[in-house]
């Protein structure tokens, strides 16, 4: 029961981050560039005592809910593809063991953008979209690294909080 409440709380945080992100004009006329703030919550779920199933659940709910609230059905499609590929990359990256949360977050950011571009390629049925890839890889790397650093700095405090609560 406590876990449900906690996941609900994190979902709310992720939704707020989605909203904040939709307010920031950061696209430079290139589809798919964004800060990826909600990914911080997914990363936190992966590294905190929850597993990848919880991360996937929160992420899918976040995408569907924020899609209906702040954008449209097509965006949901892109975001789901990006989210799925990004989560898979992060889970594998974490399992490999030689990355810190920063590296895992970079993997998530880059693969999120690759996933979105792939879906876009199928939707508009052209390879032209792939010319955005260099920019999207760079932006995924930078935003991923920054979010990774934030999450890495947060984790010890969260763990300490949990210990205090349990004792």
């Amino acid at each position, binding site marked *: 029961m406590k876990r449900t409440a906690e996941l609900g709380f994190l979902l709310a945080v992720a939704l707020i981050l989605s909203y904040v992100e939709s307010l920031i004009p950061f*696209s*430079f*006329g*290139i*589809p798919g560039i964004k800060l990826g703030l909600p990914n911080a919550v997914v990363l936190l779920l992966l590294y905190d005592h929850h597993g990848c199933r919880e991360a996937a659940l929160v992420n899918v709910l976040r995408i569907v809910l924020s899609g209906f609230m702040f*954008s*449209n059905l*097509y*965006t949901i499609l*892109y975001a789901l593809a990006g989210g799925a590929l990004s989560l898979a990359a992060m889970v594998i990256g974490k399992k490999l063991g*030689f*990355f*810190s*949360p*920063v*590296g895992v977050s*970079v*993997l998530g950011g*880059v693969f999120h953008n690759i996933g979105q571009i792939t879906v*876009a390629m199928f*939707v*508009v*049925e*052209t390879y*032209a*979209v792939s*010319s955005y*890839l*260099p*920019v999207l*890889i*760079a932006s*995924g*790397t930078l935003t991923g*690294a920054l979010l*990774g*650093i934030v999450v*890495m700095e947060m*984790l*010890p405090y969260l*763990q300490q909080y949990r210990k205090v609560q349990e004792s």
Partner: protein
Amino acid sequence: MTKQHIKKADIFLIVLCLLASVLSGLWLLTGRQDGTTLTVTYDGTTLYTAALAQSDMFTHDTDEGDKGDIRYLLITYPEPESLPKITVFSDKPDIMEDTSYNLLVITDGKVYMEAADCPDQICVRHKAIAADRENIICLPHRLVVELSGASQTQDTLDGMVK
């Protein structure tokens, strides 16, 4: 769990990604020429092809107005399931409120999206395209506007001869 630190593998990954991005960017930019042919595609179907140079473009045009160096291409989507309609104008056309549209401007060898009623407006904010292989994509309307270089023009000309 104690505090984690950035590892060597992270730095390696970041450098690798940035390098991949720069290299693929350079690869796309090399041998870039001016675009000579404009292609408008909807959902994978080619709607409109024309050379960017004026004289060629107006073999497609029924409009007989004076030939300034600016042309407007209005793409409207009257029914969701059928192909969109394309009309060429020499003056900025009035847009009907009730149909979904993209308004493309062709001027001085450059192409840009003047207006559209798509929700994200990414195509409108996109900078003007002029070079070979550059494109403007309106994902909500599944519309791709693409420029291609000299070699592709040759192909279409060959096709027309047949």
